């Protein structure tokens, strides 16, 4: 890039020139700084001036000749010393214009029309014409005509031949100016196109570079997120994470899976099918459970099912449709050992709605199974080991009390009554423990039949009336106006009412009262049984804990009221199993109300619904 634009002020970047092109342009004063561009003309002018000092070209009029030399000297000095390059093109055109004037003056001083220096006009003319637009050539042509023909007008002594020669020169110069202008404009146009093209290329290149950079960033991010996901998967060592393609071929296999299944990632990824890890019989059984029509046919996990091997179909279950699928399975290790696992299956999200595969997260549940087995064992041990001696105690007590041949004294009878009561209390505790364990294990079910709520409540009240009398507690039953029949487990419901009523009596000081209320609400479809006492109450903060096993209210322990903290959890389990709810309201020192609400359909409308069951 030159430090100054060529003759034309290119609006945009310019093409770099070859050395030869540059030299040629410089020779014609079309390249370089304003000063450099004047050098060809200045050189020609100096030569002309030198010639005019010789007798060959005599100076006819010294004044214009001298003026022309001074003018050219000033012009060259000005272009060299003044910052004229910064002027706009139109202003810079003044230089060649003045040069044409200088040539005219020189000609006037060296014989006018006969002057041999007319040809010097070409250089400034070319300089003017060699730029964009028509202004340059026009100015050049006008000036040339003036310059060439001017001396003739001034010098009336010119002959027609001289005039013709001058006119001819003027025409040639004009044609040259036009030709140069056309060529330059065309060349510049082409150069512009090339520049524009190169700019387009430049833009495209920049865009490509930008895209590449963006792609690099995106790739980097993708790699980072993949690394993160991988590191998370790898950090899970307690769960086996197995990822498969839509057909079940293993693609992801984390260290937890290596540990649980006893095979390495290398062995697992690529060739193995996820069903290879499972006990085959379980998969087949599950498939048959899902497709009862397949029962009886000779199946193995790889049998073709609904587009997938049946074992894989069984394993996926609901996950195939994107739903949650968690199930217990058995993994088989290469060494033959089996591991009970709970497997959560998730469909992997894909872009276009198609499966991109499945994730299987397996948790070893052998310890869980072991501890639940131990608990079961413990409960049955308690049940057996405590009930057996209690059976002897109660049985022989009965024999002793019933012995008609050897009747007991009243005192003995009273003592044995204490023994019997406490043995029964122990028996109730064992029963509660066993029942609580069943509730927790989810193995507790109801034996439903049509039950009259009023009758069950009345039974509870009667069975506990003696205890109320003993504790000097008034026991009131507010009977229900209508008969309410529920489809319920009579024994369990009675157990719940007994528990609540015995609690109410137990926690009410002598002189207090316990009221059992019964009400039905046909609109809400409930029957509500309330147990209200005037007892010691339960601190509000402790109410939520009442349902926890072995929890005892501070007011109860503070007054040393006996109990195990098993009663209320059992009551709630029974109520909830019946689809009911239980609420507590209590004020310390004033009393407590437990309200059991059971679902009920009034017999007047669809009473059958209440007692209907499959």
């Amino acid at each position, binding site marked *: 890039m030159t430090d100054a634009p060529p003759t034309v002020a290119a609006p945009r970047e310019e093409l770099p020139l070859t050395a030869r092109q540059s030299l040629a342009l410089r020779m014609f004063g079309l390249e370089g700084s304003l000063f450099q561009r004047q050098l060809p003309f200045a050189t020609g002018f100096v030569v002309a001036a030198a010639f005019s000092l010789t007798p060959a070209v005599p100076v006819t009029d010294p004044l214009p000749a001298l003026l022309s030399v001074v003018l050219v000297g000033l012009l060259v000095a000005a272009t060299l010393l003044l910052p004229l390059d910064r002027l706009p093109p139109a202003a810079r055109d003044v230089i060649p214009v003045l040069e044409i004037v200088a040539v005219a003056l020189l000609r006037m001083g060296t014989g006018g029309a006969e002057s041999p220096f007319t040809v010097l006009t070409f250089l400034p003319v070319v300089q003017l014409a060699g730029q964009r637009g028509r202004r340059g050539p026009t100015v050049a042509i006008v000036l040339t005509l003036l310059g060439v023909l001017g001396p003739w007008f001034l010098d009336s002594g010119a002959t027609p031949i001289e005039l013709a020669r001058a006119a001819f020169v003027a025409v040639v110069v004009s044609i040259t100016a036009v030709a140069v202008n056309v060529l330059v404009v065309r060349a510049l146009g082409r150069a512009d196109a090339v520049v524009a093209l190169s700019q387009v290329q430049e833009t495209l290149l920049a865009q490509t570079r930008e895209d590449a950079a963006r792609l690099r960033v995106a790739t980097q991010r993708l790699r980072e997120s993949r690394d993160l996901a991988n590191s998370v998967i790898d950090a899970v060592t307690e769960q086996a994470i197995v990822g498969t393609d839509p057909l079940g071929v293993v693609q992801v296999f984390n260290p937890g899976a290596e540990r649980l299944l006893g095979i390495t990632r290398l062995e697992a990824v690529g060739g193995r099918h996820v069903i290879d890890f499972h006990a085959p019989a379980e998969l087949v059984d599950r498939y048959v459970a899902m497709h009862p029509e397949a029962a009886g046919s000779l199946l193995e996990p790889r049998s073709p099912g609904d587009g997938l091997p049946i074992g894989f179909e069984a394993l996926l279950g609901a996950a195939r449709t994107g739903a949650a699928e968690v199930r217990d399975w058995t993994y088989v290790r290469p060494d033959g050992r089996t591991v009970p696992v709970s497997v959560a299956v998730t469909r992997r999200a894909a872009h276009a709605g198609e499966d991109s595969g499945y994730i299987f997260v397996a948790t070893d549940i052998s310890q869980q199974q072991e501890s639940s087995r131990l608990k079961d064992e413990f409960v*049955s041990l308690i*049940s*057996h080991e405590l*009930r*057996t001696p*209690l*059976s*002897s*105690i*109660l*049985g*022989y007590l*009965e*024999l002793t009390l*019933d012995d008609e041949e050897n009747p007991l004294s009243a005192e003995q009878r009273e003592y044995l009554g204490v023994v019997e009561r406490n043995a029964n209390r122990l*028996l109730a505790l064992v029963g509660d423990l*066993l029942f609580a364990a*069943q509730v927790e294990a989810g*193995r507790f*079910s109801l*034996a439903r039949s049509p039950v009259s709520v009023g009758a069950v409540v009345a039974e509870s009240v009667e069975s506990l009336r003696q205890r109320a009398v003993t504790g000097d507690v008034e026991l009131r039953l507010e009977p229900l106006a209508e008969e309410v029949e529920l489809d319920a487990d009579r024994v369990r419901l009675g157990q719940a009412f007994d528990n609540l009523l015995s609690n109410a009596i137990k926690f009410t000081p002598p002189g207090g009262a316990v009221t059992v209320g019964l009400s039905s609400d046909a609109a809400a479809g409930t029957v509500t049984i309330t147990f209200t006492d005037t007892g010691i109450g339960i601190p509000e903060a402790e109410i939520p804990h009442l349902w926890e096993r072995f929890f005892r209210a501070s007011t109860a322990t503070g007054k040393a009221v006996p109990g195990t903290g098993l009663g209320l959890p059992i009551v709630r389990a029974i109520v909830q199993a019946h689809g009911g709810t239980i609420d507590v309201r209590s004020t310390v020192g004033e009393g407590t109300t437990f309200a059991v609400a059971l679902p009920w359909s009034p017999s007047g409308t669809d009473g059958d619904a209440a007692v209907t069951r499959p």
Partner: protein
Amino acid sequence: MTDRPLRVLVADDEADLRALVEVAVRRAGMEAVLVADGDAVLAAVAAERPDAVVLDVSMPGTGGIEVCARLRADPATADLPIMLLSAAVHEAAVQAGADAGADAYVGKPFGVRDLAERLRVLVATRAAGGGGDD
């Protein structure tokens, strides 16, 4: 046959309870043959030809459920009235007893008077029903 009292084979590994059941059997007007485990039941049943069997469910060796099933499987004893005694009173345990073919399932602890009554009913029902059907 008719002159000898009805005979009940009682199996329980707990001597105290065995004796308690014996009292109940006597009160029911029957005669008790006591054994301590399931294998003894299977060995004694042919010789004693009991009219009913009372089996404790959890005994060392062959338990009551299995003894019951085996007695049911043997044509000679298939119609024998069988009562199971067990400390396990949850539904699944009772169901297991019914599945094994027991006629009655009594949870421990039991009342002596109550057990005597149930024995009487059991034998009477079996005698009436079995005689009529077969």
